[in-house]
């Protein structure tokens, strides 16, 4: 095992360019599990823990900036995140136990690209922008384009996640909902995780709607067919049933060690229904 320690951003990018095979180390709550089982033997590690600026969360005129190294704890207690992006604060609160929240970072959660990443549905409905940086320059990647598959991102060689930009929607949603379903309330990998935003017109027709589910496909899914079906409709049982019939076009859950396809379909249906029927 070879350890590269970056004292600042410039050095991190230089080192990463020189050693593109290195694994960046943020909080280590994913990486160190691999280390403990011997999977990282012989690998090169790029320690980012000195990049203190990357742990900042700040309010911007348009929304909130969350540095890649901000921990789940910092996110879940941050006043601007709580008031403007409550679904992200709630999802950070459900990640692992306090120990994992205190050490795990948002950048690490995204880069790890697990199908069960609990922040992803919230990031999907807020249409987060992922800011990346490499020795060659900066890029802004829409959250919907950051994943390439299970445990795979579209980050390029030598590229790090620098932070996440959240933009406050131009009108405030009249409903926001987050639910995580797992084997127990905390410290459990989710079977299904949901986030939703809803804007209703005065006549109770749907002005806009954004729904996302995690753990039901290779990566998080926006429910585009359901969203389209509901937009402009009155939110009545008929419209909801019609929309839910499109669920299998939006998600593709699998049978695995934690759950079955049928169970995940049913839970997903119930989560969407209870969000749409909430008052």
């Amino acid at each position, binding site marked *: 095992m070879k350890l590269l320690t970056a004292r600042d951003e410039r050095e991190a990018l230089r080192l990463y360019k020189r050693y593109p095979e290195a694994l960046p180390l943020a909080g*280590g709550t994913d990486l160190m599990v691999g280390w403990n089982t011997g999977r990282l033997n012989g690998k090169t590690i790029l320690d980012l823990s000195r990049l203190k600026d990357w742990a900042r969360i700040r309010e911007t005129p348009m929304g909130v900036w969350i540095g890649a190294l901000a921990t789940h704890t910092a996110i879940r207690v941050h006043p601007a995140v709580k008031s403007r992006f409550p679904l992200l604060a709630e999802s950070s609160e459900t990640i692992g136990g306090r120990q994992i929240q205190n050490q795990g970072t948002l950048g690490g959660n995204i880069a790890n690209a697990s199908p069960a990443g609990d922040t992803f549905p919230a990031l999907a409905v807020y249409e987060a922008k992922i800011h990346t940086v490499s020795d060659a320059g900066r890029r802004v990647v829409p959250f919907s384009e950051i994943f390439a598959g299970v445990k795979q991102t579209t980050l390029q060689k030598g590229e790090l996640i620098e932070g996440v930009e959240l933009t406050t929607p131009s009108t405030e949603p009249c409903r926001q909902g987050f639910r995580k379903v797992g084997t127990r309330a905390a410290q459990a990998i989710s079977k299904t995780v949901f986030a939703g935003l809803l804007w209703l017109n005065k006549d109770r027709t749907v002005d806009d709607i954004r729904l996302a589910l995690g753990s039901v496909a290779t990566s998080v899914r926006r429910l585009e067919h359901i969203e389209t079906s509901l937009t402009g409709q009155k939110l009545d049982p008929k419209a909801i049933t019609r929309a839910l019939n499109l669920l299998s076009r939006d998600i593709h859950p699998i049978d695995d060690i934690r759950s079955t396809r049928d169970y995940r379909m049913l839970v997903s249906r119930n989560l969407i229904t209870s969000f749409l029927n909430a008052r």
Partner: protein
Amino acid sequence: MQVKINNKNRSFNGTPFKRLIDVLREDFGLTGTKEGCSEGECGACTVLLDGKPVNSCLISICQVEGAAIETVESLGLPEKLHPLQESFLREGGAQCGICTPGMLMTAAAYLKAGGDPSPDAIREELAGNLCRCTGYQHIINSVAKALSENKK
């Protein structure tokens, strides 16, 4: 490299990717911190990093340069126990004891923050600490007791 452990400045010159739990136990003789699962699930290895509970089995020493670490050894002495140690003794919060140092450290941070003494809030706070002996109720009672005495 320098790191503050239980309020003493310590220097460490070993391999920079050594896990914090191993540095504490092997290099500094602080064997109060226990290892259960080695994968972040059980919380037996919980220590405080700048006042916050973390799993010392998932942290390498290079990540904590300049930081302050507190282990269970910092809590109390046999002749002068910490309020949580008192309440764990009185309420039967410990059986085999493997989970206890981690429980105490998570609870100590909660106590210091003036946490909510309701059983639900305590359960949520301790969700990252597993116990295979007590069935949790005695642990929750112990923490609730220390919290309510703290408020008085």
